[in-house]
């Protein structure tokens, strides 16, 4: 009997401990606001944050890129070129290798399909070898080691995690083959080029600035994030946080949805119950944007201004329901560029050392250009693939 009470006591104590814990967590978040501050992890307080990088990215948004205007995946913003003559292999018959972090989400899936289509456009690429690391750092390290032993003429890497893949990339560079990194970076300068769109700070800021305009000072915004600790996502949140702080927006919470639609919907409903109403929704990625919208619909409320991404289902809902929304993008056309870079390098042409691609955002005005009801709900409009052979079948 005593033991039973004791266990029940532990359970109750655990519950209470959990309930009271948010006070202690507040010391990590915005330290000035001691009372009912929302428990917010990461972002500006995380060690990812770099004001310098953020300012650079925000400035890049206004710069005119070099290169063909109708092919943004070939454009570069303020490039500094490097010579690649030492890698030239005239005559073609190249073996290009690619270490892919994963194909476990629709963004990567669309990107990978696009990349394969790009590789098919270049007859000089005789072999395009791909290893899928299934989102495991350890496997990707082994994959890169494996590829460097296979006589590749060029190696493209999309790292699963920045810090941990750095030694493996350095080892690959040391073998003398040209290494091209894109999407997430690594902490070394040894690759010939590092390709990415402008970046996360710009993405987060685009969305945040839109919400500031629509919601106004003092408005309550809920931030929905996928996962903590992913650098490309942390920067988005940090960018948004700064804009919100500078403009007096109240961030009532920053919750992790794990990219799950049901989770997203439940979280939004809970916040509506808790806060009474929400004036805006900021999302670090658009995969579950429709679920967030539906949370409001199910409660019979109007959908407040919301930021999403370039998925077809979000764009369609935005259009059909005439929502107030914006879609910053992390364009999947960046998957074309590494192949183009590999071709240039193996031809001995110059490439930008830091290849920054333009990062457009979809607004009310430009929405009709990107809407394509033919495509599936998780198709990304900025794939740069609409004119490629095999479209739309290969992407459906």
């Amino acid at each position, binding site marked *: 009997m005593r033991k039973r009470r004791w266990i029940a006591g532990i359970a109750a104590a655990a519950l209470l401990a959990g309930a009271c814990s948010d006070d202690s967590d507040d010391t990590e978040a915005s330290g000035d606001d001691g009372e009912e501050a929302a428990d917010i992890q990461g972002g500006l307080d995380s060690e990812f944050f770099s004001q310098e990088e953020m300012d650079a990215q925000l400035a890049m948004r206004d710069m005119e890129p070099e290169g063909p205007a109708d092919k943004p995946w070939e454009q570069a913003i303020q490039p500094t070129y490097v010579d690649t003559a030492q890698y030239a292999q005239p005559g073609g018959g190249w073996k290009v290798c690619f270490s892919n972090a994963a194909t476990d989400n629709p963004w990567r899936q669309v990107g990978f399909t696009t990349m394969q289509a790009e590789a098919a456009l270049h007859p000089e690429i005789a072999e395009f070898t791909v290893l899928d690391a299934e989102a495991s*750092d350890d496997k990707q*390290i082994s994959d890169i080691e494996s590829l460097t*032993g296979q006589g590749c003429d060029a190696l493209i890497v999309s790292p699963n995690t920045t810090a941990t893949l750095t030694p493996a990339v350095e080892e690959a560079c040391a073998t003398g083959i040209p290494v091209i990194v894109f999407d997430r970076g690594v902490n070394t300068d040894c690759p010939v080029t590092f390709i990415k769109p402008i970046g996360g700070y710009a993405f987060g800021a685009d969305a945040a600035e839109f919400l500031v305009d629509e919601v106004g000072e003092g408005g309550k915004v809920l931030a929905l994030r996928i996962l903590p*600790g992913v650098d490309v996502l942390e920067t988005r949140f940090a960018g948004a946080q700064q804009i919100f702080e500078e403009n007096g927006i109240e961030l009532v919470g920053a919750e992790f949805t794990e990219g799950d639609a049901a989770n997203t919907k439940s979280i939004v409903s809970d916040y509506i119950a808790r806060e009474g109403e929400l004036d805006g929704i900021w999302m670090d990625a658009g995969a579950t944007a429709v679920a967030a919208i539906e949370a409001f619909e199910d409660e019979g409320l109007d959908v407040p201004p919301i930021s999403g991404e370039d998925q077809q289902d979000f764009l369609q809902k935005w259009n059909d329901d005439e929502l107030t929304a914006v879609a910053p993008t992390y364009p999947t056309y960046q998957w074309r560029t590494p192949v183009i870079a590999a071709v240039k390098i193996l031809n001995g042409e110059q490439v930008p050392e830091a290849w920054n691609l333009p990062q457009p955002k979809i607004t009310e005005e430009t929405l009709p250009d990107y809407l394509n009801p033919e495509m599936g709900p998780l198709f990304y409009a900025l794939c740069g693939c609409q004119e490629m052979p095999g479209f739309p079948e290969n992407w459906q």
Partner: protein
Amino acid sequence: MSDTVRDAPTGSPSSNGLEDPGARSGATRGRASAIVGRTRDAFAATPIWAALVGIVGIGWVVVTLDGGTFFASGNLTNILQRSVALGIVAVGQTVAILAGSLDLSVSYLISLASLVGAETMDGRESMLVPAILLTLAVGAAVGLANGLVVTKLRVNPFIATLGMALILRGYIENNYDRPTGSVPESWESFGYTRMGPIPVSIFLFAGVALIVGTTLRRTRFGYHVYAVGGDEQVSVLSGLRTHRVVIAAHVICSVCAALTGLFLASRLGSGTPRVGTDGGYDLESIAAVVLGGTALAGGRGRVAGTVGAVLVLAVLDNVFNQLELDPFLKQAVRGVVIIAAVAVYAQRRKGRQQVATGTAAA
């Protein structure tokens, strides 16, 4: 109650993987041939090694047909390197399962160990040994907790270790959100150095497997593990301190998981909150253990089997890599292989049981 085993636990008439030490008289055999004999028995008792040879053969055929080279040194390195992490944790899991228990918390413990280890090392050579000791101690503490909950609180190991997994997960997510800490040069090179095609880290795996395997089969403690896993009631009646055995088994399992975390930290250069879960080490290690012939209910099996199974899985991985097959297809194939292997083992056991008890069909 004395700690000695007064009567050997009877177990089932069919092979419980435990040979009677008296049957082979050490007096008449030379030591070398005894070792050879024991190794041969180990392989004979674990059909997974025959399967390994078979799979290597099939893999070679398929890859060659596809235009690749199976026995390239890079491949051998890949297979061996990919076995180390899963191998070490699977060896530990073997002990837990043999004792009749189970550990679902290993993947979070691996992540935690990598974080604690890398953070303590902080890039400094001088902190290498203290960090390793501290991390192993943390592992032991988690194992102790698991063991106590399973034995003293009488909680089913599935739930006990699932609960522990959640507790560890909460702790990790609350305190870490990114790669943390850094390992010093010497430890990082441990993860990358190779002697020809053989990665140095394979010796860590081999060492752990040897130590644990020998402990299980040559010491009284090991004997007790099999006894408790085989039949707890009988063990209690024979005077065994079964709780201590189960707790020790859990400690071994968790220390192995912590060691895996340290090894992964050497590969990644730092600790990360997701390295354990990304590798799916909880269900993977259990799969490797049963694939190697150990019974999920406990009391039967050997570390040698687990080692063979880990290599089989690594070869499968490698072949799929070489053929550039869809990783999802690989997952489905893995599922089929696991079920098929365990079904085969179960049929063999049933056959032997029928023969032994005279109930074989005429």
